[in-house]
């Protein structure tokens, strides 16, 4: 089970001081947050991708490569990479490069993006969002697996004799997750490829998450990648913790009340009851998240949103200390209890290389048998 954090990269005024960090401060803070995540023993750092203010992460591989150079263990990912408006050729190149630079500590999560104007800014039509995600990913999938690609589709210039460089590290493409909150076609896409499915449930009731994950699992099995409980599932989460629940609630309330997305809407009490947002003691967080698998089955990746809504860097780093030291170690133990041995971990570069090697060995022994058979026939 992997635990990590994901950032939206919003530049939001701190509602308690009215101070807005500069973009420079926010970008540097993002790096510090990622370094802290590794320091406290988390497994994954993922960044969003946005092309409009008040967000800074427009160039995820630049940031991730910089973080990669200053870390040694943490896996670098995205939440999400815009498969709709980015050229799949450029995604193939950028993330294969990142994969080499980080010695395989790279995976990524595809998403469509929900900001209407971004589509026309990149020459696309939001009404084609799902169709773009389907076609672009089909191309990306081939570019990482086929040396020379001839390709023609609806949304980009055809390719004749194209080779995406660099080739993926060790010939093994980065693992891909598909993120979607309410689009069954995307759960179906993840299932079709046997890729991971990430439900960013942080703003949603669990009943909805459960339905979407169940669909993905069922279709994963349908498409022949193994039993439903071996599908690769990730969930979002959002927490704020202090030793006492009262302190946590008092400190977080102004950030909640003014937060982008849900601020000025439901009360913090309603929202924490209805969504995975948990504001309280570390033990409350542990109890809430240890129960997630009761709803979606044993899963592989849990990412937390920690640096949202104008929380100052100092507070975020404190939160990461609590998460890494008090919460995640307990969750790791609790999630391991009763977890069937056949439920896989999330794929990593090492596991995918091993899998490719054993598939090749099987293939060559098949080939040897085939050759012997042919020889015997001669």
């Amino acid at each position, binding site marked *: 089970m992997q635990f990590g954090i994901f950032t939206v990269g919003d530049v939001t005024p701190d509602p308690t001081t009215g101070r807005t960090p500069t973009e420079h401060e926010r970008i540097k803070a993002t790096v510090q947050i990622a370094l802290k995540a590794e320091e406290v023993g988390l497994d994954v750092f993922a960044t969003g991708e946005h092309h409009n203010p008040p967000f800074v992460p427009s160039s995820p591989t630049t940031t991730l490569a910089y973080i990669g150079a200053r870390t040694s263990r943490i896996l670098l990912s995205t939440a999400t990479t815009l498969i709709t408006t980015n050229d799949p050729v450029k995604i193939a190149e950028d993330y294969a490069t990142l994969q080499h630079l980080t010695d395989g500590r790279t995976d990524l999560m595809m998403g469509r993006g929900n900001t209407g104007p971004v589509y026309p800014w990149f020459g696309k039509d939001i009404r084609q969002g*799902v*169709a773009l995600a*389907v076609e672009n990913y*089909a191309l990306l999938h081939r570019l990482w697996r086929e040396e020379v690609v001839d390709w023609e589709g*609806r949304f980009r210039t055809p390719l004749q004799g194209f080779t995406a460089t660099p080739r993926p590290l060790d010939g093994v493409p980065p693992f891909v997750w598909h993120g979607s909150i309410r689009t*069954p*076609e995307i759960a*179906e*896409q993840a*299932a*079709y490829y046997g890729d991971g499915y990430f439900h960013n449930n942080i*703003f*949603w*009731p669990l009943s*909805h998450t459960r*339905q979407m994950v169940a*669909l993905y699992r069922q279709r994963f099995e349908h*498409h022949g990648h193994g039993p439903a409980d071996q599908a690769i599932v990730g969930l979002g989460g959002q927490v704020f913790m202090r030793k006492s629940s009262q302190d946590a609630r008092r400190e977080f309330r102004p950030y909640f009340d003014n937060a982008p*997305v*849900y601020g*000025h*809407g*439901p009360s913090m009490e*309603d*929202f924490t009851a*209805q969504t995975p947002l948990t504001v309280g003691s570390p033990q409350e967080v542990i109890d809430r998240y240890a129960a997630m698998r009761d709803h979606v089955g044993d899963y592989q990746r849990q990412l937390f949103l920690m640096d949202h809504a104008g929380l100052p860097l100092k507070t975020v780093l404190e939160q990461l200390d609590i998460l890494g030291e008090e919460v995640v170690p307990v969750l790791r133990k609790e999630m391991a209890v009763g977890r069937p041995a056949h439920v896989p971990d999330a794929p990593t570069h090492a596991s995918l290389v091993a899998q490719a090697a054993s598939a090749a060995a099987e293939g060559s022994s098949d080939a040897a048998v085939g050759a012997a058979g042919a020889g015997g026939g001669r």
Partner: protein
Amino acid sequence: MVDGMRVSEDVRRVVVVSAGLGRPSSSRLLADRLVSAVSGAAGARGLSVEVEVVELRDVAHDVMDAMLTGFAGPRLEPVVAAVEGADALVAVTPVFTASSSGLFKSFFDVLDSKALVGVPVLMGATAGSARHSLVLEHAVRPMFAYLRAVVVPTGVFAASEDWGAAGSVGGDLASRVERAGEELAAVLAQRGPRVREVDPFAGLVSFEDQLGAR
């Protein structure tokens, strides 16, 4: 067994959505008259009508929360489910600032845009004076047209004076209510109960078909 099935086929669920804010409100008063006309006219056609009344005031905060969060919270969720499962709607709004009330519109804004496709709707509006009587035609009917609901021809508008006018019993308002009730009952009688999709993913397009789409 056959009788049992026929009985269940002859029941229609009508959900009344009233956006009146007062207690009592004239919108609710009109809604009650409309639904009783529907029940009477349906009864004459051998249909029995189950009525559920939704006062949007009771879920007003939840409607706005849903607008902001994108999902219906636990108080709004059963209301949405009732509307999405209704065989017909009676929808009544007060006239505010030359249109339907913001709460009325917001409720339909947070419904799934396909929730009312093909659903018969009888619309009503209340206002202080007859100068607003076309609000149903220029604001409410187009909204239901967008949602692809089947709005019956008669929309019933009631100004304050309609409630006290000498001719109001058996007069203008009563005859409009009766006509509208007849129209909705006639549509209800033509169709069986609404088929509710149990599997939310029933319409899923397989990936092979998505890939093949051109």
